[in-house]
């Protein structure tokens, strides 16, 4: 019985650990922390003026024309999103989404790829963009 258990489980456990170790090693250059991937470091990206605020009220004061966005599909490239990160409200520059990942520029970090669930948990739903009249 012991031999049978070894034959049954050892190859599976071994291949799982091998594959997991390979995957972890591949993730290292992208600094994946379970929530986001780093595609390009901050110093390699085009400089953008993105601010952060201690709370939402301060952000509203700085952006009197904030818009609420309910759906991911309503976001447009170069929208400035207000995210709740590390207890602060941080401006990020939205680049692209396919519904699974969200590509953005995060100040002090670089071009990042957020997992959808992490994005949903941190996005305040508020966007700073030019007035709707100027948008197509």
């Amino acid at each position, binding site marked *: 019985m012991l031999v049978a258990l070894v034959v049954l489980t050892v190859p599976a456990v071994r291949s*799982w650990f*091998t594959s997991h170790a390979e995957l972890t090693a591949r993730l290292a250059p992208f600094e994946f922390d379970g929530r986001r991937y780093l595609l390009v470091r901050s110093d390699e990206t085009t400089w953008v003026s993105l601010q952060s605020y201690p709370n939402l009220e301060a952000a509203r004061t700085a952006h009197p024309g904030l818009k609420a966005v309910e759906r991911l599909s309503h976001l447009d490239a170069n929208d400035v999103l207000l995210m709740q990160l590390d207890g602060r409200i941080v401006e990020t520059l939205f680049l692209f989404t396919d519904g699974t990942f969200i590509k953005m520029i995060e100040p002090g970090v670089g071009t990042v790829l957020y997992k959808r669930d992490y994005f949903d948990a941190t996005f305040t739903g508020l966007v700073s963009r030019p007035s709707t009249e100027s948008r197509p």
Partner: protein
Amino acid sequence: MTRRLALATGAAAVFSLALREAGSGYLAIVAFGLLAAALDSEKRPLFAALITAVAWTGLAIPALEGTALVIWWSLPALIAVHGIVWGVAGGVHALFVRKPLLSWALLPLLITGAEYVGSSRLVFGGAALELVAYTQADTILRGLAPWSGTSGVTLAVAAFGTALYLLTKGQPRPAIWTSVLLSTLMAVSTSGMFERRESGTVRVAVVQTADDPVTAMLSKYDDRLMADVMGKFEVLTHNVRERGAELVVWGETVLPGEGDSGRLPVATKRALGAAPVVLAGTRERTPEALFNSTMVWRGSYLELVSRKQVLVPIIESHFDPGLPTAPVPLQGANVGAFVCLDSLHGHISRESVRRGADLLVYVTDDTFAGSTASNWFHLATAIIRAAETRRSVVFANAYGPSALISASGEVVARTRVAEPGFLVEDLPLWTGPTPYAALGNYVGPACLLLLFIALAFAFLVRRSYVHQAPRMG
């Protein structure tokens, strides 16, 4: 009790070897023999159910171990859910052990019925699967697939295994009859009766870049990574073109741009342009939905070929399922194209063959499964699809193994896992239906019907006995 559990665990161990690359499908017959030994004279339905479910884990672990790399609990969940079906089969077997002849005759039917139910998308949705038949991708028993698809192969394995056990008990008759019947069927199958007409050949190539899972995923979102990936595709595609490839197949979701030719990066267009016709997988966005599709590039723009019909539960919840489509003429072949899990369900390919497909193409990306045995199981499904429809098959796995498979299910050429490479071969285009293509899987439902009849008969006999008992007293 310990002896029976030890036998069941032994059956599981041998089953697992039958699905691993280093093993052989013939071991599945031995495993069934061990399962039969564990169930011999076991009258307790619950314990018999446990024994049978334990044996089944031997098939499930190698086939599904790759899923645990994506969602850790998916493997135990799938084992538990599908193990119940096998458990029910074992439990029912215990109800008949008082009649040894009937119980041994029913065991192969029970296992075949359990596998048939497990493969039902009506019951299990995207998690539907069967495993026994795919152990036979490397044995002569796959020659039975044209008769009734997977259920015929499963029935043969279970019947041989049961007969093998009875042979060890000094009862040679079941082994003799099973061997005679199945040998006759296989002799007929291998005499060329299914290959009605060869309508030509097509020189097909598969290109496999084997990018690691992280690069493969992130390249869709990063231009520099995508340029690197497409650079490899361009070099490999150029190589197969030099070897005369007419149709080149890439893996699943390798193309960026969500199916919009205008959004294809320059590097991608250059790689596609290295061959006259490239069939590749891509995410396809329409105004209403998102599909996991295959598209063809014939020099200027992408054209839709097919959309994935069976989506992976949870992981692909953001996709919409596609519908069956007619085969697409490419380089003289009528190509039925499918994506990933579509290869697990014979009826999907069968529908395409009935619509005129003479070449079946499966594009997939098993990068997620790393170095586990799940990749080999996936290849085995494509081999059985070739055998049951008698069509040449192209299996293009972005991470490997990829393969070109003859209409009899023989692997003509194969790449290695996790290594970039390509394959080029002439594949014959066969027409004409097999009994499976014409009639579908009739063995599976027939097994279930026979089981219901046996259960109804047993119930009526028992009821009649209970009613008569007081009068007799």
